[in-house]
């Protein structure tokens, strides 16, 4: 149901990996002396890389300020990356269902549609509870469902009922097929309190 920062992690790890690889290759070239043969300006292996006085280089106040600002930026990026690891629901904004906004808008909160889907799923046999979440847009909706069933539920039958009843109904309401549908099923020992209902035809037996 919740989304993780997988793409962000892959991107940043790729960038950091490339930087670390470039640094490693550079150190290897310096250590082997290959870089020194390519350019005489490079210090030979075994000799200090910097010959100048570092205290003098970092002495001015502006150098300290630059290092401080750079540290804060890197620290901020690190903090932002850590916060991005918190799983988020990322629900969709209100769906806009109007054709011509000049004559008026039509808005529907995705949670309204999700409630209708949950209500429908909760009436299926064996379902103890469910939660639904809609993402994407009104023209390209994504549906994610978490369904809890009891241990007597027929999972294949449940999936069949969802595919032939619940999803087509949602597509009918939105007038577009689902772009992606995710279903997570959990099994619980609880009883299905709001499962299949029995409609009475009025026959009373004494």
């Amino acid at each position, binding site marked *: 149901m919740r989304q993780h920062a997988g793409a962000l992690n892959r991107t940043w790890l790729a960038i950091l990996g490339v930087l670390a690889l470039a640094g490693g290759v550079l150190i290897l070239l310096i250590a082997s002396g290959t870089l020194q043969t390519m350019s005489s300006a490079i210090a030979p292996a075994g000799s200090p890389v910097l010959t100048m006085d570092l205290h003098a280089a970092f002495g001015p106040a502006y150098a300290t300020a630059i290092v401080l600002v750079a540290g804060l930026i890197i620290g901020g990026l690190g903090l932002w990356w850590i916060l991005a690891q918190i799983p988020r629901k990322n629900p969709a904004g209100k769906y806009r269902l109007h054709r011509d906004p000049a004559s008026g808008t039509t808005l529907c909160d995705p949670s309204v549609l999700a409630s209708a889907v949950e*209500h429908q799923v909760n009436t299926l046999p064996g379902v103890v509870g469910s939660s639904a979440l809609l993402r994407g847009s009104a023209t390209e909706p994504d549906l994610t469902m978490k369904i809890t069933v009891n241990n007597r539920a027929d999972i294949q039958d449940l999936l069949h009922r969802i595919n032939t009843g619940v999803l087509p109904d949602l597509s009918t309401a939105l*007038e577009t097929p689902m772009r992606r549908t995710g279903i997570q099923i959990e099994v619980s020992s609880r009883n299905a309190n709001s499962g299949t209902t029995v409609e009475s035809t009025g026959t009373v037996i004494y």
Partner: protein
Amino acid sequence: MNAPAAHAGSLPDAGDLDSRGRTVLDQKVVEKIASQVAGEESFAGGASGGFLGIGAHADFAARPQASVELAGNIAALRVEVGLLYPVPLRQATEQLRRRISERVTALTGVQVRQVDITVSWLKPAAESTGRRRLL
């Protein structure tokens, strides 16, 4: 909010106006008409019960909530409506918009320029309590 509303009907002559009087519609009248027209649709409903809006529940027999902004003889309506599930929402709300616009104009003479619709709930027609009935 109790701003004057609209002059109903056509005004034939300015000279006759003073002698014949004026008809002024409060905007609440337009709101109630719009609400009633929306509620007449079989697939639309409102909310009933509760206290000050708290604890209200979806009800197809209730009138949807409507509000209006009047500028002279031109109205912009905002309707909060519950709909039958599953109905094609675009088609249903477009039909509702057309119906409200036509009926409000016909009944009040106010020109409806916009009808903004917010879908507040969706319910299937045969609402069941989910419990087995005792025979």
